């Protein structure tokens, strides 16, 4: 079996300009969420790009067509120069979104960020009460702080999205999560069922939702969307281990978005480093446009030529692009395989059985995310 994602043949796939960029400004974070999507091997503080490096990267991003910038981490507020970084993104007219747990933000910092050009905040939610949230986030006092920050965001009228990662231990409280978003005055809520990448791979047995929970969540979301139309927009990431078809990961590899790690490696998605054989060039030394257009990593799964059966001759391939390459790698040992979530994958039954087994596990302790060096 070919487990390497070598790209030898140069393929003339039409390359569209990227729409969005996710900048992981740091992997440092006061929290320790067991589902953190950061890699198990975190980038050390000493390896982080400087604000000046980020400014160059943002300039290149704007030049090649990036419109939306998501400032993420780790916890971006762990960087003392976040305000400067936001200002440099604003200077090249990128739409700036801050993805934060709220810990590390003060009223003064919020004001400075808005002055620097910050347009939107996405606040993560670990639970709807202090006991749950602080247990999941592995940080005492985190929930109280987050509620305070939410209040400051509300008073200032900063557009807010609440991002709630849902899993077996909190899915039963989805209705309260939705209420909380409304009470906070959030315009949007992301109900994001845990995806098993990064640290979540160590917590499958503790976090895997049951099939009944997944079904109930879909019903609750559908009902809330109707009831709250014009009040709260709900984006819903379903539990794909219980689904029949995979998600169109990243809207297609190398088609709409890119990720930059704290040390400047440019990747097609945040888990792409789990695919052996892909080499990620570094920004800003290598121009983002060159990486996007020409790098082997970005071309590895562009278009449809790389596909195998059953994807190759499937009519859904233009919709889901064969699903997630990293999930194919993790489960099939081959990044070119059909995402095992798909009902047409020979591994589908095995994936679902293992999801059922994980969902039925009892008394499993959480493995918390650690901090970088």
């Amino acid at each position: 079996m070919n487990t390497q994602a070598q790209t030898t043949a140069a393929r003339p796939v039409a390359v569209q300009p990227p729409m969005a960029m996710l900048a992981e400004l740091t992997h440092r974070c006061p929290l320790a969420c067991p589902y953190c999507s950061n890699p198990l091997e975190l980038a050390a503080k000493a390896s982080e790009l400087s604000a000046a490096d980020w400014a160059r990267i943002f300039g290149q991003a704007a030049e090649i067509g990036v419109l939306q910038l998501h400032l993420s981490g780790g916890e971006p507020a762990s960087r003392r120069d976040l305000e400067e970084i936001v200002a440099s993104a604003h200077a090249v007219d990128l739409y700036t979104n801050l993805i934060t747990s709220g810990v590390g933000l003060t009223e003064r910092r919020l004001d400075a960020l808005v002055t620097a050009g910050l347009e939107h905040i996405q606040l993560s939610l670990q639970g709807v009460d202090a006991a749950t949230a602080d247990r999941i986030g592995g940080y005492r006092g985190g929930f109280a702080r987050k509620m305070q920050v939410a209040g400051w965001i509300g008073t200032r009228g900063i557009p807010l999205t609440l991002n709630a990662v849902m899993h077996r231990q909190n899915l039963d409280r989805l209705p309260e999560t939705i209420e909380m978003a409304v009470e906070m005055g959030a315009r949007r809520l992301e109900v994001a069922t845990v995806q098993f990448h990064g640290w979540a791979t160590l917590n499958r047995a503790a976090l895997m939702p049951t099939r009944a929970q997944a079904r109930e969540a879909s019903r609750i979301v559908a009902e809330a969307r109707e009831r709250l139309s014009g009040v709260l927009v709900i984006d819903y990431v379903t539990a794909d281990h219980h689904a029949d078809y995979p998600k169109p990961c990243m809207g297609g590899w190398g088609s709409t978005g890119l990720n930059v790690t704290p040390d400047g490696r440019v990747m097609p998605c945040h888990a792409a480093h789990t695919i052996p054989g892909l080499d990620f060039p570094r920004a800003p030394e290598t121009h983002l446009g060159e990486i996007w257009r020409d790098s082997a990593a970005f071309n590895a799964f562009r278009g449809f030529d790389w596909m195998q059966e059953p994807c190759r001759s499937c009519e859904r391939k233009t919709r889901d692009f064969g699903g997630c390459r990293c999930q194919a790698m993790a489960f099939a040992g081959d990044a070119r395989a059909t995402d095992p979530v798909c009902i047409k994958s020979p591994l589908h039954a095995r994936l679902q059985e293992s999801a059922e087994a994980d969902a039925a596990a009892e008394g499993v302790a959480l493995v918390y995310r650690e901090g970088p060096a």
Partner: protein
Amino acid sequence: MTGLAEQAVPRLLRGVRTKFDGVRGIWVLLAPERTLKLDAVGAAILAETDGTRSFGEIVDRLAARYQAPRERIAADAGTFLASLIQRRMAEAE
């Protein structure tokens, strides 16, 4: 919601803005976690939506500028703006 009252004053919410995308050569609407590519009609409607003009005024101006039947413009602009309101990108008073 399928339309807007003549006297309603629509405006984009904070954190929602139009931008000419020089790389693609099109107008876009940038909003939290969303980018909408605007066609000529959508761009023209939003160019008139300045937060002070009423929906009726916006329709009048578009009808004059494009010499199109008022009812058609009102229907198109009403549907478009109502969809932005429903998606929490705009509001109307």
